């Protein structure tokens, strides 16, 4: 039903929401305009053989990582949620922990472990092993991205498993299927939708990943754009190249959309609250446990262990880690500013979407989600040239960097704020108005206090993601402004492994901070 109080108060909210959506749209619009102005030469250069190679590389890596993540996440989801695996509750938390390790930190750990002059080589040298298989290239990129992105799929799959009606599996069992058979013939087909959603997350992550592929020296679009940008390539062909990358993202999104439309008819009514019966692992118990342990060891213990090892090596050699504290402070400042700015931009958009649903609100919502599909490299590149051209004063400032973060992470903040806003029934606001509070007093006195946990959660989420962000920070940060991520990057490039390891560990520590806030919130919500 139409609510009049918003009609009279909305212009300012609409204004802010439209402005926010406009901000989010700038990079893409700039790219399109730029590419449209590009001459035929730029297009020729882009559609040269080298681009085809980039495309093949990117697609190959995306497909490989997505497939291996699914192969890893599917059995883990089943083992931890639907079987009598010992310590299942612990495994459930442990299995998603690799999410806290940015893929480039993971890649770095792999390099210092398995690379030339890495830990393994050191270990094996006395045994006369001169060379170990090359970690750089496709293998390294594939391994590091799989190990540190499969938890995304795991989370989505697990939610999907929980929504399934356990009655289906029971029916299959009563028709003579074993637990494993029921899983493959009944559960997995029903998991198609969450599986597709999880694969989409992983695929998008891989396509836009810059740090891991660059460290592994594997040429994908993001790395190529960065390299050409550093080499002062002409803007038009960079814009065209970026657009090709964005087009690839949209192809993936389109595949997902078509899947979803198709799958809607298969979706079940909301499942029973009844807890599913756990499958007995029996003699597969130990192999399953071993498997879980191996995954945890490779994706969690090994990277952190290797980082600690190199930190110790550095300390023993008298390394003083200059600038570590300053970088940490910069990281916190940038992430805090990004969190505050993003939540501030997200709030009016969320209000419009929740309170004034309609065609315009839907457009605002969609546009605000563009950042979700844009790789950080592309946003950074577009914003650099946009600011240089339109607002030169903004170039090389912290404000420009925060601008990029807002574009990139707006979707996260919006979904957080929106979820909490949905819980504020309009009747609460109406009750406040009838008790002689104005619209503004109602907003500050009723709405904001109730959605405060959502705002804090949105802030923490953006803080966390900004902390780990690499390419945009690398390209947009003011010259003297180095963060943990950028210093990790430059130290790694200069082969200061000990220094890089110290930055990586501190980064993991700082990123764990908002995790505590997020988990605390969750506990409160559950109570």
């Amino acid at each position, binding site marked *: *039903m*139409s*609510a*009049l*109080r918003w009609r*009279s108060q909305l212009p300012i909210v609409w204004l802010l929401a439209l402005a926010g959506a406009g901000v989010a749209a700038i990079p893409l619009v700039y790219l399109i305009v730029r590419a449209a102005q590009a001459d035929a030469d730029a297009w020729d250069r882009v559609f040269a053989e080298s681009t085809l190679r980039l495309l093949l590389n990117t697609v190959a890596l995306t497909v490989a990582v997505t497939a291996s993540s699914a192969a890893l996440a599917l059995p883990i989801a089943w083992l931890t949620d639907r079987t009598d695996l010992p310590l299942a509750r612990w495994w459930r938390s442990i299995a998603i922990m690799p999410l806290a390790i940015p893929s480039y930190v993971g890649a770095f750990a792999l390099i210092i472990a398995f690379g030339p002059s890495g830990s393994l080589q050191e270990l094996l040298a006395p045994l006369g092993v001169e060379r170990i298989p090359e970690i750089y290239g496709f293998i390294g990129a594939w391994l590091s991205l799989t190990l540190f992105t499969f938890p995304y799929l795991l989370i989505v799959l697990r939610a999907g498993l929980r929504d399934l009606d356990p009655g289906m599996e029971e029916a299959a069992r009563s028709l003579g299927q074993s637990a494993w058979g029921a899983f493959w013939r009944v559960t997995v087909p029903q998991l198609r939708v969450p599986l597709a959603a999880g694969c989409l997350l992983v695929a998008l992550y891989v396509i836009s990943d810059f740090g891991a592929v660059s460290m592994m020296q594997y040429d994908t679009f993001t790395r190529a754009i960065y390299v050409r940008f550093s080499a002062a390539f002409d803007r038009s062909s960079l814009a065209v190249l970026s657009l090709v990358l964005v087009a690839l993202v949209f192809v993936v999104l389109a595949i997902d959309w078509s899947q979803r439309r198709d799958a809607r008819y298969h979706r079940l009514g909301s499942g029973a609250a009844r807890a599913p019966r756990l499958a007995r692992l029996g003699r597969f118990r130990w192999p399953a446990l071993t498997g879980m342990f191996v995954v945890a060891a490779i994706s969690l213990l090994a990277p952190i262990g290797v980082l600690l090892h190199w930190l110790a090596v550095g300390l023993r050699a008298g390394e003083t880690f200059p600038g570590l504290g300053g970088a940490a402070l910069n990281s916190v400042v940038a992430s805090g500013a990004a969190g505050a700015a993003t939540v501030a931009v997200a709030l009016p958009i969320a209000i419009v979407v929740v309170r004034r649903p309609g065609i315009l609100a839907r457009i605002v919502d969609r546009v605000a989600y563009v950042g979700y599909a844009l790789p950080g490299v592309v946003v950074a590149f577009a914003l650099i040239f946009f600011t240089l051209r339109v607002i030169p004063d903004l170039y090389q400032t912290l404000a420009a960097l925060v601008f990029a973060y807002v574009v990139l992470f707006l979707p996260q903040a919006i979904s957080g704020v929106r979820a909490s806003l949905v819980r504020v*029934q309009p*009747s*609460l606001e*109406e*009750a*406040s*108005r*009838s*008790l*002689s*509070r*104005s*619209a503004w*007093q109602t907003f*500050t*006195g*009723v709405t904001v*206090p*109730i959605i405060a946990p959502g705002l804090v959660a949105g802030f923490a989420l953006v803080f966390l993601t900004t902390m780990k962000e690499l390419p945009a920070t690398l390209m947009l940060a003011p010259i003297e402004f180095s963060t943990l991520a950028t210093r990790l990057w430059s130290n790694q490039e200069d082969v200061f492994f000990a220094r890089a390891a110290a930055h990586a560990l501190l980064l993991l520590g700082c990123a764990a901070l908002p995790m505590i806030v997020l988990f605390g919130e969750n506990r409160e919500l559950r109570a």
Partner: protein
Amino acid sequence: MSSAPSRSEAGAPAIRVSGVSKSFRGTVALSDVSFELARGEILGLLGPSGCGKTTTLRVLAGFERPDAGVVQISGASVVGGERWLPPEHRRIGVVPQDFALFPHLCVAENVAFGLPGGHRAWWRARWSRALNRTRPPSPRVLEMLNLVGLSGFAERFPHELSGGEAQRVALARALAPRPAAVLLDEPFSNLDQHLRASLRWTMRRILKAANTAAVFVTHDREEALSLADRVAVMQQGRIEQIGSPDDVYYRPRTRFIGSFVGDANVLRGRLSHSGAETELGFVMLRDESRGGDGAAVDVLLRPEQLELKRCEASDPEYTRIVSSEYYGHDQIVRVRLTSGTEIEARLRTDIVWLPGDPVDVVVLDEGVAFPLTE
């Protein structure tokens, strides 16, 4: 921009609505709604869903803007022509269907919300609570909590209240600023069935003690008849009849009202003298001025206006019992007349009626007649 209702007159009705109309995208929600409400009077808006009763409430509260019509509160116009006063300036209390207690405030703070000085920033209240320096509730808050019988609940939070308690807090909150009228949207729909009867009585006692005019919306006829001083029956955006519960129950103006307000038996008949000839014989009518002698009418009789008498009859077509539903305090007995029409009688439970028993139907009271529309 706007000011509190000015020129409120002492003798003016608490609420006066005249000619209010409203449509949503071409669908008529209200059409020419008019009524008045005296101070301390309780009006029940009764009707099927979608009849416009909630929209009426929202227009009064200021949550919807009518397309036409005038609304006056205590004699001062809040809606009319170009004038439209926002809800915060209307002095109208609202008790929403879900009670809408502010989850971040305790009971006392909820009740104080609309009082002068209740504008204290919420985080400051939180802060002083954390420091254990809470201010005692104001006398008005205590008075209100006392009125609704929740004196010991000041420090509780909404999630610690039962449904009935939450409702009374919402009522206390709405009454605290001494509004000209209180509006209640489906006040009992969120409460347990068996609690409703006692809560209706509590609600009526509180409203009468506060001497505030009240309008409530319901689709439950029992609720409307037992809580209201006057009932307005609405259908398709119009008020079809407004009157005392007894009026709308025994003197409905239309067949629709008659069957919506209570269980009804409808029989074909012909007007004659001051009554009508029906299958049950001659039935006295409350209102005989609805057409001349011989006109075909529908005659409405309530189940409790009928009595059954046992008789001896061997004719299988004779009036016989079909079934009886036992409720403890009374029973509903279905009877098939010779013509095949089935009617219901509400009877005491001292006699057991068995299906198939032949009976005679006696009409105890006057019926109401409606001219046939065909």
